[in-house]
């Protein structure tokens, strides 16, 4: 024993008995093992692909794709490359995910708050909504909206008409699209100026409230500026905006803006499904706030709406944000079910058609997986940052 003591004192412990060195050794061994397994898999794949005569590499991305895609946010036709189909699919995935997150958040908060309403009917309706949509598989819901509901719409020639400028039929929603001419730049500039003005008004109002206690209707003022200023500039610059109205030509409507039913069905299903989960998260968040907070706010004479907005929700957000992040990630990943109804998302276009035409499964699948990983990590990074900002600052 005296020996040991002496060793500890001088730091002269044998290698195996020093926990720090030992753990370092194990880390090193694990690292080498992981790396070696990865390397073996890579080598093995290369060898096997070669021996089977399967083409490898990423050259296929430059080859002409030769197939059409129903919806693309960037110019695309059959003469573009497979690389382009990747971007088209990616943008379509981002489009439906972003819209889905936006609508699901609004709907989810509304339902979550309704669930806690003192009105018996409202809270029961919210409860029924949650229990129905949370407990039916998403794929079935997508099929339901696409094959059962949207299919009831009439054909192109019997379209439902809205004052002759917008049309609704089984092929989608047809809206007039704006044609931008010169002079429209002024309107955009006015919009930017309006946004900057709103920021200043908000600051000024807060300062005034802090010093004098008087409140200023910031929301209504902002809304007026946001709509009014660009509109005045629009009239002054000579009403420079024209609309292209969809017209029935041959088989289908042409011109204007088309929202394809695949997008509508997927978006409706994703929104309704995810909102049910978000509603429960919001409810648990609000319920986690001590009832005393509400009572205190009421005692100060703050009305119920303001209490919710200024006292309850800000505190509840701390509880809400982490599970909300998971729901956003779920929604993004669930958007890949698009392939079931033919919405041209990344999985359908790139991991589907492109993979099949080129046969390069490994490259295509790894690119697709990398995209979902990156999207998810970005969302989670943003939400973590937001969570930190919202966290209760203790003094």
């Amino acid at each position, binding site marked *: 024993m005296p020996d040991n003591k002496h060793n500890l004192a001088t730091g002269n412990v044998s290698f195996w008995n020093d926990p720090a060195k030992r753990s370092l050794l194990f880390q090193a061994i694990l690292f080498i093992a992981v790396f070696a397994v990865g390397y073996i898999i890579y080598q093995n794949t290369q060898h096997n*692909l070669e021996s089977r005569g399967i083409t490898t590499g990423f050259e296929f991305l430059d080859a002409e794709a030769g197939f059409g895609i*129903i919806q693309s946010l960037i110019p695309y036709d059959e003469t573009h490359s497979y690389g382009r189909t990747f971007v088209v699919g990616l943008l379509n995935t981002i489009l439906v995910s972003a819209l889905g997150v936006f609508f699901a958040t609004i709907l989810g908060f509304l339902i979550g708050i309704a669930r806690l309403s003192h009105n018996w009917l409202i809270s029961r309706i919210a409860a029924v909504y949650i229990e129905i949509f949370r407990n039916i598989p998403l794929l079935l819901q997508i099929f339901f909206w696409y094959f059962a509901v949207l299919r009831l719409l009439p054909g192109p020639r019997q379209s439902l008409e809205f004052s002759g400028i917008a049309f609704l039929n089984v092929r989608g929603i047809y809206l007039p699209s704006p044609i931008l001419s010169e002079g429209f730049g002024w309107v955009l500039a006015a919009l930017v100026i309006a946004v900057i003005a709103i920021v200043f008004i908000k600051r000024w109002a807060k300062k005034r409230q802090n010093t004098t206690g008087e409140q200023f209707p910031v929301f209504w003022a902002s809304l007026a500026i946001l709509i009014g200023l660009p509109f005045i500039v629009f009239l002054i610059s000579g009403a420079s905006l024209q609309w292209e109205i969809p017209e029935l030509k041959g088989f289908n409507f042409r011109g204007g803006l088309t929202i394809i039913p695949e997008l509508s069905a997927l978006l409706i299903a994703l929104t309704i499904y995810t909102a049910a989960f978000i509603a429960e998260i919001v409810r648990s968040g609000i319920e986690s706030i001590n009832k005393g907070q509400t009572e205190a706010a009421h005692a100060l004479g703050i009305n119920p709406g303001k209490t919710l907005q200024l006292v309850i929700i800000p505190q509840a957000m701390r509880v809400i944000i982490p599970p909300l992040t998971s729901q956003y990630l779920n929604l993004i990943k669930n958007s890949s079910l698009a392939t079931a109804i033919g919405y041209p998302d990344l999985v359908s276009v790139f991991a589907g*058609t492109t993979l099949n035409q080129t046969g390069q499964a490994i490259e295509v699948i790894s690119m697709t997986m990398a995209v979902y990983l990156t999207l998810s990590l970005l969302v989670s990074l943003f939400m973590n940052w937001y969570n930190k900002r919202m966290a209760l600052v203790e003094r």
Partner: protein
Amino acid sequence: MKMIGLVAAATAISVSFASASISADTLSTVKKNGFVKCGVSTGLPGFSNPDDKGKWQGLDVDVCRAVAAATLGDEKKVKYIPLTAKERFTALQSGEIDILSRNTTWTLTRDVSLGLNFAGVNYYDGQGFMVSKSLGVKSAKELDGAAVCIQSGTTTELNLADYFRQHKMKYTPVVFDTSDQTVKGFEAGRCDVLTSDQSQLYALKIKLSKPQNAMVLPEIISKEPLGPVVKQADDKWFNIVKWSLFAMVNAEELGLTSSNIDAKKKAKNPEVKRFVESDGPIAKQLGLNQDWAYQIVKQVGNYGESFDRNVGKNSPLNIDRGVNALWSKGGFMYAPPMR
């Protein structure tokens, strides 16, 4: 869910090849398993479709049965694996199936870059269009601006784009995963036109709730030689599948059918004798039993029988033999001699 399948298959290619490359010999695997794993469609009447008892039937299914009869002596020893067009090649590459017999078009790209071999052609087809009669269209050249329903991951998708480009017409592609969904989309009016191989159009037409309201346009815009596919670098297995198909065609030419082969066996015709007994060394080279060709005809029938039963005059599809007749009757069906 499709995604999971593809990911699994891609992973399988990268990892399990370790074991697969050691036992690249499909024949011994099949003999060891006691069944042939055959990739078929998810349901296409006439080609591969389960009947009301759940038994797989069709022209493509008969190729699987013939290979099972040749290798294992029993046409029933097949495990059918339904695949969508998108999944089929990955399934074959990763060894999930031994043969892909699923109305697959033989193209240059597929032959040279996918690590696959086409074992022959069991149906000569071409791409066509089906429209609803109420549309009043008589020719594919009137289809400018139409919405077109297609099954994803097929040569059809590429031919369609080529055809509309060539005729300076525009179209809206509506792409579905399975032929069932494609038909549903067409019936619901999501698209004006359904495009596919002509044989498939006839098969899909009888699936419609009102088949009399739809019509197939006369234009055929492509060559679609359909046939079974196997993995590359296994010549033995490639030969077996190839010659199982040839045996069916040769049997028709020799007039051998499932019902008369036993009687004809006793006849002295040297060609028939060679067919049923396959002269010792040949069967051995193939790695099969002496009577492999006899078993195919006895249990599955010759090509003509298979055609009539599944897609021809004895089937609801009632497709004309046309170019799929024997070479001696003005068609393309020509098998190398068995000697």
